[in-house]
C-alpha cells in the first residue's frame, strides 16, 4: 500500500485467534510507560508474532504538563521558564525559539554580541543533548562504558552552564530582548579547555562504538527510513539527515547569525540506526567547529536590546532618573505587551525542528503559544520503522528516534 494510506492505521488490540506466520497467535504486550529503555514515559502496544513485531502503536500523554496552557496564564517574560522545561535536553534552544518569536513580533533585533552568545549556548546544548543520547542509547544496547564517558563531558558542559547562567540544566539564559548576563572570563577559559579536549573525546566514543561488531550488528539495517518516506512523514533533524537529505534549518533558514559560520551539514545515506549514529557524531564535531569560530569572532558591545519597554533599566540608573523607576515599576507589575499578530519561528534542536508559534492579542499575556515538537513527529515514524523487526530491535529504534517525552507531550 502507498505511504499515504499507511498513516493512521492505528493498532487495535488484537482479538484472540488472529494468527501469525507460523500458526502462533499474535501476543499483545505493553512496552509500557515504566520501562528502562523508552527514553521517558512512552508506552508502546506491540503485537508480536513470536519474536517479530507485527504492529506498534505508541501511546503518549503520560508526561503531559499543560505547558501551553501555563504560558497563557503567565506574562511574556515569565514564559521563558516554561520553555526550558518541555524539551529538557536542549533548554537554551527552546528559549531561543520563544525569544526570536517574541522579538519578531515586537520588531526588535538583538545586538550581534547577544546573537553570538546565543549561538554558543545553542551549540553547547546540542553537544550535551547528543551526549545524553549517545550515553543512554549505548547503555540500552549493552555498551555500559559509553554512558560513563559521555556523562563526563556532559558534566563539564553543565559546569559551563552554571558558570554563565548560575544553573546546570534549565539555564533560561536566552530571553526575549537579549541574554541574561555577559559571559565571564572563567567561562571562556572553561570553554577554551573544553574545545581543546572535545575532539579527542569524540574520537574515544568512535573507538568504542563505530567499529564495534556488537554495535554494528545491533544498528546496521535496523529501523530503515527511506528518504521519500522520511520527507512524507515530516521527519526532521538526524532522522531526515540519516536518510541522505541535507535539511538543516541552520543552513536552510538561518537565524540568530548562523549564516556567518561555516560548517557542513552532517548527512549519511544509510537510512538506518547506524547512519543516524554517524550523523550525530559528525554533528558533534561540527558543533565544536562552530563554537571555535564563535569564540574567535565574538563581537563586543551590548548584550541586550536597549528598549526600556522590554527590559528593566540598569540598577544604578534607578537612583537618578524618574523614567527608569516608572519603567522598572511598570515592567515588574504588569509586564510589557506585544503588538497583536502571530508568528512562527523554527530552530534546529538536537532532535530536529523545534518551533514556537505565538498568537498575541495585544494584552500582556500571550493568546496562544504552540511548540512544534520534533519528537512528536519523529515518533509517528516509529510505527513504520519498527515493522517486521525483532522485539530487541525496538530498543534500538526508540533510541535512534531520540525522542524526549517532555517534548512529545508538552
Amino acid at each position, binding site marked *: 500500500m502507498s505511504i499515504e494510506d499507511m498513516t493512521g492505521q492505528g493498532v487495535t*488490540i488484537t482479538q484472540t485467534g488472529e494468527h501469525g506466520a507460523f*500458526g502462533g497467535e499474535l501476543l*499483545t*504486550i*505493553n512496552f509500557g*510507560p515504566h520501562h528502562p529503555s523508552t527514553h521517558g514515559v512512552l508506552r508502546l502496544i506491540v503485537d508480536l508474532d*513470536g519474536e517479530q513485531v507485527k504492529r506498534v502503536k505508541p501511546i503518549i500523554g503520560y508526561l503531559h504538563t499543560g505547558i501551553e496552557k501555563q504560558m497563557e496564564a503567565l506574562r511574556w517574560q515569565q514564559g521563558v521558564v516554561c520553555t526550558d522545561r518541555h524539551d529538557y535536553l536542549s533548554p537554551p534552544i527552546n528559549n531561543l525559539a520563544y525569544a526570536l518569536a517574541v522579538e519578531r513580533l515586537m520588531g526588535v533585533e538583538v545586538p550581534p554580541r547577544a546573537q553570538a552568545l546565543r549561538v554558543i549556548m545553542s551549540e553547547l546544548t546540542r553537544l550535551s543533548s547528543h551526549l545524553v543520547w549517545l550515553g543512554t542509547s549505548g547503555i540500552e544496547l549493552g555498551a555500559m562504558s559509553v554512558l560513563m564517558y559521555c556523562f563526563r563531558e556532559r558534566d563539564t558542559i553543565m559546569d559551563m552552564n552554571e558558570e554563565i547562567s548560575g544553573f546546570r540544566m534549565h539555564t533560561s539564559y536566552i530571553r526575549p530582548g537579549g541574554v541574561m548576563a555577559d559571559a565571564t572570563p572563567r567561562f571562556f577559559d572553561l570553554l577554551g579547555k573544553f574545545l581543546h579536549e572535545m575532539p579527542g573525546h569524540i574520537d574515544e566514543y568512535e573507538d568504542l562504538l563505530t567499529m564495534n561488531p556488537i554495535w554494528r550488528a545491533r544498528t546496521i539495517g535496523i529501523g530503515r527510513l527511506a528518504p521519500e518516506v522520511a520527507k512524507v512523514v515530516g521527519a526532521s533533524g538526524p532522522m531526515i539527515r540519516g536518510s541522505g537529505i541535507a535539511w538543516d534549518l541552520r543552513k536552510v533558514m538561518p537565524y540568530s547569525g548562523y549564516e556567518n559560520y561555516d560548517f557542513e551539514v552532517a548527512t549519511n545515506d544509510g537510512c538506518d540506526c547506524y547512519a543516524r549514529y554517524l550523523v550525530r557524531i559528525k554533528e558533534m564535531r561540527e558543533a565544536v567547529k562552530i563554537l571555535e569560530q564563535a569564540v574567535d569572532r565574538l563581537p563586543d558591545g551590548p548584550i541586550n536590546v536597549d528598549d526600556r519597554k522590554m527590559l528593566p533599566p540598569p540598577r544604578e540608573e534607578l537612583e537618578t532618573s524618574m523614567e527608569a523607576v516608572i519603567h522598572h515599576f511598570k515592567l515588574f507589575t504588569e509586564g510589557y505587551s506585544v503588538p497583536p499578530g502571530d508568528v512562527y519561528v523554527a530552530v534546529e534542536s538536537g532532535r530536529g525542528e523545534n518551533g514556537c508559534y505565538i498568537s498575541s492579542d495585544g494584552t500582556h499575556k500571550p493568546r496562544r503559544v504552540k511548540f512544534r515538537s520534533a519528537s512528536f513527529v519523529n515518533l509517528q515514524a516509529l510505527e513504520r520503522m519498527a515493522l517486521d523487526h525483532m522485539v530487541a530491535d525496538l530498543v534500538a529504534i526508540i533510541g535512534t528516534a531520540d525522542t524526549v517525552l517532555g517534548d512529545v507531550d508538552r
Partner: protein
Amino acid sequence: MLESYVPLLIYVLIVLGLVGTVASLSFVLGPSKPTRKKLAPYESGIIPETPAMRRLSVRFYLTAMLFIIFDVEAVFFYPWAVLMRQLKWFGLIEMFVFMGVLLVALAYIWRNGGFDWD
C-alpha cells in the same frame, strides 16, 4: 566397593544442607505481605487485560529442539574424556567420527535456514 563413593555422598549432603537452610531461612524470616495488588502481573505499570497464555509460534519449539540436540552431544564427551587414556587411538578416531556426524547435521540446518528467525 561402595566406600570410594562416601566422600561424594558427604559432599552432596553438605550442598543440599547449605542450600536448604539458606532458602528456608529467607522464606521463614523474610517479611512477606502478599496483597492482591502486589501479586498482579507487572507489565511496565499497566495491568494487562489480554490473557498471556497464547499459542506460541512453532519457531520457539524448533529453536528449543536444536539446542537440546547439540547440548546432549556435549554430555557424551564427559565419559570419553575420563577414559581417553585407555581408549588410545581408537577412542580418539571414534569421537572425531561422532563429532563429524553432528557437524554435518549442524551445517545442513544452518544452510537450510533453521537458525534465522524470519
